[in-house]
């Protein structure tokens, strides 16, 4: 599947770039918004249905129970420590680096929010780091799963509830659907709070 995913992504980027130069804004709207929302909503519906139909997957999920809820806290802590260490390596503002990483992959939130709290450069970084987090998860989930079944869910962060969910389920297995979705959901809810909390610590 990865053989299809990367070329499709590259063709999408090229098409978007060309459309931005020569095309019409309506075409951008059709592909970036309408197709995106339609495919995301229908995928969640279909994956939910496939999960519920798979009795083995639901049994495995029930065995894990509420333990799956601690998973996103590990991902959140890892992301913040990662931001801290990254800031130290770069010799830059560690709070700003932590805030950028506290977006957990939600780039449309982190870009503007980090920009507002720490300045333009951090806004661009907030957007880039979190967008790349999503793209790298899509591109390397097949490899990360060899390290640990749950590694792609940790890499996906907040995006594990939407864009990276189908890829995660494909490689980590049907039974990880609810773990991935709930982890993504909790991190999505936590992102705005953690970013502003880190900013409050900095100022």
């Amino acid at each position: 599947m990865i053989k299809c995913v990367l070329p499709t992504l590259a063709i999408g980027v090229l098409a978007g770039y060309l459309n931005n130069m020569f095309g019409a804004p309506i075409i951008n709207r059709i592909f970036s918004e309408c197709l995106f929302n339609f495919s995301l909503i229908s995928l969640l519906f279909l994956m939910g249905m496939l999960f519920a139909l798979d009795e083995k997957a639901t049994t495995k999920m029930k065995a894990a129970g509420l333990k799956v809820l601690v998973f996103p806290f590990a991902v959140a802590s890892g992301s913040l420590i990662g931001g801290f260490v990254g800031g130290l390596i770069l010799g830059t503002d560690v709070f700003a680096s932590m805030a950028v990483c506290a977006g957990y992959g939600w780039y449309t939130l982190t870009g503007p929010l980090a920009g507002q709290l720490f300045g333009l450069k951090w806004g661009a970084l907030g957007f880039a780091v979190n967008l790349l987090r999503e793209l790298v998860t899509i591109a390397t989930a097949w490899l990360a799963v060899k390290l640990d079944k749950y590694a792609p869910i940790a890499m996906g962060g907040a995006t594990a509830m939407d864009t990276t969910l189908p890829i995660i389920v494909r490689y980590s297995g049907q039974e990880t659907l609810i773990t991935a979705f709930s982890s993504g959901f909790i991190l999505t809810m936590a992102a705005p709070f953690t970013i502003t909390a880190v900013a409050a610590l900095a100022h």
Partner: protein
Amino acid sequence: MAGLSDVAVLVLSLALGLALGYSLRRKRGILKVEKLVLAIILALIFSLGFSIGSNSELLAVMPSIWLNALVLLVMVLLFSVLFAKAIVKLVKI
């Protein structure tokens, strides 16, 4: 998806899918949607690429921030996976 209100739509779609899946459990051989799912995944990835490609501001700023972005990305992925691996072992998910 852009806003928190959209999260509700995603949760609802998943819940509807789960409910329908449960209600169809006893009926065998009615679903062969693997290829459809793959096609929709590719449509999603294409539209994601499209929105990145049309974001000229991001493409313009990338050359000046790519090194910082790369370091932060590697660290955030590394520590997220390490912490996740530790918690999976600790609570035996």
